[in-house]
């Protein structure tokens, strides 16, 4: 359980993440953004809850659906917005875009366009901590779709045999693009697979920030204590399509509406009201603050310089 001040901050971060993605969605609809992006809307509690359990020096690896992870980790929405618009001042100086936002020095080891692509990297970061005798941990986000990639199995096995300080956090948002997890996986929970690698497997409701946070905190503690990795699974749902080109043909409006009723932000806000940490009028203010912040970020980003074309030839080699 976080301290009270932090809890409101977590709500703000969830709002910021949602507002960011909704804004990006609007910009795509208006044709103002080139390229593609995958939206985190509906899953905010997973990233914000789990990352809240990290300590200074811990690192994360992210996925192609990584805006929420980045915001939760504390990345600057100005530079994220600039990157989405391909500007020189973006996190990747316009070379990465939505799927490659990273801040390696800060410990955000990168979004990753390849499903499961960061799982090996997460093990490597864990290896480095262990090798250097540091008690840091790695929080590795991945989707339930990645759980059927070979690298998932190899990474979990390596982390387990070498007791690497890695928490594998599966965001089970029910669909790998259009493929339902029920069709793609025969086990009931992804976390059931933990047994196969000799590590604990835990499934929590991703809609409950506190549940995610507490499970992550426990797993991270195990990792830091040298007891090895954990496979965490957070049951969640993405409200928007897989990417901007998704027509949602594989699921019903009713299903989306049902999940929206259990919205993680609303639930956490209600919880904070019940805890007396938030008043109703404050909620409106928070929403407006969040909108203003994001509007401001994209406005600034739009006025940033384009990278020089010849910079496309730089940064291939160090």
């Amino acid at each position: 359980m976080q301290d009270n001040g932090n809890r409101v901050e977590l709500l703000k971060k969830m709002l910021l993440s949602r507002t960011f993605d909704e804004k990006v969605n609007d910009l795509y609809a208006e044709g103002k953004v080139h390229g593609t992006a995958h939206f985190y809307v509906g899953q905010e509690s997973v990233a914000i809850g789990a990352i809240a359990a990290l300590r200074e020096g811990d690192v994360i690896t992210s996925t192609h659906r990584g805006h929420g992870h980045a915001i939760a980790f504390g990345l600057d929405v100005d530079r994220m917005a600039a990157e989405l618009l391909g500007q020189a001042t973006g996190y990747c100086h316009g070379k990465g875009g939505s799927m490659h936002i990273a801040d390696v020095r800060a410990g955000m080891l990168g979004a990753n366009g390849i499903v499961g692509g960061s799982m090996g990297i997460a093990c490597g970061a864990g290896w480095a901590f262990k090798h250097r005798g540091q008690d840091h941990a790695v929080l590795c986000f991945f989707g339930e779709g990645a759980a059927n990639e070979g690298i998932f199995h190899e990474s979990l096995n390596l982390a387990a045999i070498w007791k690497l300080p890695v928490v594998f956090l599966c965001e089970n948002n029910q669909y790998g693009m259009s493929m339902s997890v029920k069709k793609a996986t025969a086990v009931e929970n992804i976390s059931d697979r933990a047994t196969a690698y000799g590590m604990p497997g835990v499934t929590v409701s991703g809609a409950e920030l506190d549940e995610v946070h507490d499970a992550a905190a426990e797993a991270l503690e195990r990792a830091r204590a040298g007891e090895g990795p954990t496979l965490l699974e957070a049951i969640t749902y993405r409200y928007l399509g897989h990417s901007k080109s998704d027509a949602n043909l594989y699921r019903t409006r009713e299903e989306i509406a049902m999940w929206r009723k259990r919205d993680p932000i609303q639930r956490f806000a209600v919880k904070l009201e019940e805890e007396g940490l938030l008043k109703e009028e404050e909620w409106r203010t928070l929403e407006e603050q969040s909108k203003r912040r994001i509007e401001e970020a994209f406005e600034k980003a739009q006025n940033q310089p384009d990278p020089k074309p010849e910079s496309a030839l730089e940064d291939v080699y160090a």
Partner: protein
Amino acid sequence: MPSSASREITYREAVREAMVGAMRNDPEVFLMGEDVGVYGGAFGVSRGMVEEFGEDRVVDTPISEAGYVGLCTGAALMGMRPIAELQFSDFITHCMDQLVNQAAKIRYMFGGEGSVPMVVRTPGGAGTGAAAQHSQSLEAWFVHVPGLKVVMPSTPYDAKGLLLSAIDDQNTVLFYEHKLLYNRKEEVPDEPYRVPIGEARVSREGEDVTIATAGLMHHYALEAADALSGKGVEAEVVDLRTLSPMDHGSIARSVEKTGRLVVVEEDVKTAGWGAEVISRIVEGESFYALDRAPARVAAADVPIPYNRSLETYIRPTPEKVVDAVQSLLDARVGVYA
């Protein structure tokens, strides 16, 4: 080069010496791969190392090439200096995503914010009767991937010097060894030294034809050059040593001198790296120095067969190099099939 003392050691020992030297010097360097520990590696390259550095730095892995190459990628991103060994270069297919989509591109995707200073050592090539899945020369694949460097030393001296340079390098370097080179001996200095990545070496001077080559093929080229010398043809042999970034300048300088170019490469001919060597000459100023159409001696476009005579039939040999050069000069046809 510092050469206070040297002695004759094998290519295998030279590679080991570079790793041992780097690991003694820098605790962030470690070796990871299948059977690299007590077993000493499938070809004995790391024999004895686990005794000195322990299992935490000479790490036996499960058979999980994607997993441990991915792990090394992450460790490198965190600033460590991993050396991953792939038992046979054919197994590199298992970790293509880690190498091509992750290690090679992380720096660029992140706009220069981060790098992956990893070395992937692996023996390639045929001639051992190991057949199609243990004999390939796939190095051209990686020459084609921006962000990766590819080195292929042919001598013990270069193996040690290039491996030390590769470990120092801030980028991911694929270090191609050859099973038939491991026992080759040469005088190698005791001390550490660096052979720069990206520099070719003229290993034999000649006026009549340039033979550009690398790895084991370098020795075939030298054998061929000796045979040709007996027939009045003096070949200049350029050992590329690094395939990416390729030292086109050295090749061009030699071609300017000889006017004739034959590439000897062990990979299959179609879209092999020899095509790149020739293209750069032909599209550059040195085109006008050419007095014959350039030629390639490469493996036939088939998987490597098991039977010895079949294998010899499809691989480059010193005799085929001699034939190619003579065909270029004598028959004046300039085409070698």
